[in-house]
């Protein structure tokens, strides 16, 4: 099966089972309700053969008022990608959007690799993953204050007595 066919099948599957429009495709994938995050991943893994865990990318979006639009409140967006293995390999991507303070359910029970990826995103971006088995900082020291990849974190923040 070629990648295009896989993509078409995936779009149909998502619309049928989860009722999300694959409209912004391939622009990071559709935005899926948080409640369906784990169910979607499990279904993709078990039914469509997307077994390879690829990425977990969280991004921080502060309060923003687009020109002529309403205020978009501060939120996190977590993009996840799973890959099908073998010929015509293809990435199934989707995103979930959570307000600050809410958590994203973890995928660590389905994919062993999600453990570290989600820890890294928690460490750098600050998004919390619910039910994660071991949610600690991964890259930065334990006592670090703040999450550097948030937009309100200054890049040159000092850390005495070292810098």
């Amino acid at each position, binding site marked *: 099966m070629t*990648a295009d066919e896989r993509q078409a099948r995936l779009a149909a599957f998502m619309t049928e089972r989860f009722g999300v429009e694959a409209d912004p495709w*391939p*622009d*990071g994938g559709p935005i899926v309700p948080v409640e369906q995050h784990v169910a979607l991943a499990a279904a993709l893994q078990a039914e469509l053969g997307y*077994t*390879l*865990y*690829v*990425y977990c*990318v969280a*991004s921080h*979006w502060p309060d*923003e008022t687009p020109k002529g639009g309403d205020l978009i409140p501060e939120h996190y967006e977590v*993009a996840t*990608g799973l*890959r099908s*293995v*073998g*010929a*015509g*390999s*293809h*990435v199934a*991507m989707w995103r979930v959007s959570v307000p600050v303070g809410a958590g994203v359910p973890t995928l*660590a*029970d*389905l*994919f*062993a*690799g999600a*453990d*570290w*990826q989600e820890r*890294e995103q928690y460490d*750098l971006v600050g998004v919390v993953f619910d039910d994660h*088995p*071991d949610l600690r*900082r*991964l*890259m*930065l*020291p334990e006592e670090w204050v703040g999450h*550097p*990849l948030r*937009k309100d*974190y200054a*890049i040159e923040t000092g850390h005495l007595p070292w810098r």
Partner: protein
Amino acid sequence: MAVKANIDSGRWGDPYLDLSTYTADADLMELNMGPQHPSTHGVFRVVLWLDGETIVKAVPHPGYLHRGVEKLCEKLTYVQITPIVDKNDYVAPMLNEQAVNMAVEQLMGIEVPRRARWLRTLLAELQRVASHLLWLGTFGIDLGGALGGGTSLFMYCFRERELIMDLFEGLTGSRFHYNTHTVGGNRHDVPAGWAEQVKQVLTFIERHIDEYVAVLDHPIFEQRTMNVGVIDAELALGLGLTGPVLRASGVDHDLRRDAPYHAYDEIDFKVPIAHGGDCYARYEVRVAEMRESIRMARDLIDGLPEGPLVGARPIKTPVQVKIKSGQAYVALETPRGELGTYVIAGGDNRNASPYRFKIRPPSLHSVSALPWVLPGHQVSDVVAILGSLDPIMGEVDR
């Protein structure tokens, strides 16, 4: 749920083992390996809990080289990012540049000319050979120590690697961090006589790979690597392992063939796989890949098409590289596996630089296998397993 069942059945080690529930006849020894340790391939720390010499639990701590590259890239323009990401996977810098530029090209819809695509493929394959040579050398040190036979292997591998470095220096003028790829094509064209030089070097290396295989074909090496650090296919996929480590677990998956980019759909090559899932299988796969890459590089240098090196819509100045909005994930196959770039463009109206820039490093996934694999092994196996995963700390920590 699948993960839990496999831990309970003893198929994988338990990374979340509660040591207070562990009963032993003796005290557990908490041993730090790293961050400064001869065989952790950079600054990487694994805390081991040992019962005698057997590992009960292993907790890796990355992040000793966390340089905030992703944050830095948010401040730089798309063109400025290229030399920065060189330093991530510093054993295969060429491929980092390609990953970034491919992402930008996809977001901007730029067509890369055929010659540049072939040249990129050629550089990627040469870089793969160089990277695997470095891996083989350091793996020798891991197994044989700084004062032993392993060092001899290391010296030989570096001798050959230097030749490839010379080729790159001849092409780009730089020995290590090349900055030769740019948005829409390549910066440096092939100098006169370079093709002949490449072929000579490839012949030389090919001959010497046979020597290494002959040197390593002895029982001690096999006993140290066979059945050590077995990663089965299910664990490998769940962890997101890619590249040689995944293929050594028996999964036939290679982005170059399965999701072709560059010129990989135009040339003919084989993807070696092995079924052991252990350190020896990874060694087998990497050596086979080196040979295959040398063959590919020969074909590529022979068939290098004529034409321009930058795109039909040339980007004359860096100022022109601008992306309004969009998100893209682009991946390619490095010597360590799938190196992906996730770019969120636009956002706060700064078109020239990304809003969020995420590198999906294959090495981070590789080392995340350690807590699952190490328990039950011995202290000496740690270096063999870690070495066989070929992690590059610049890429793990970024």
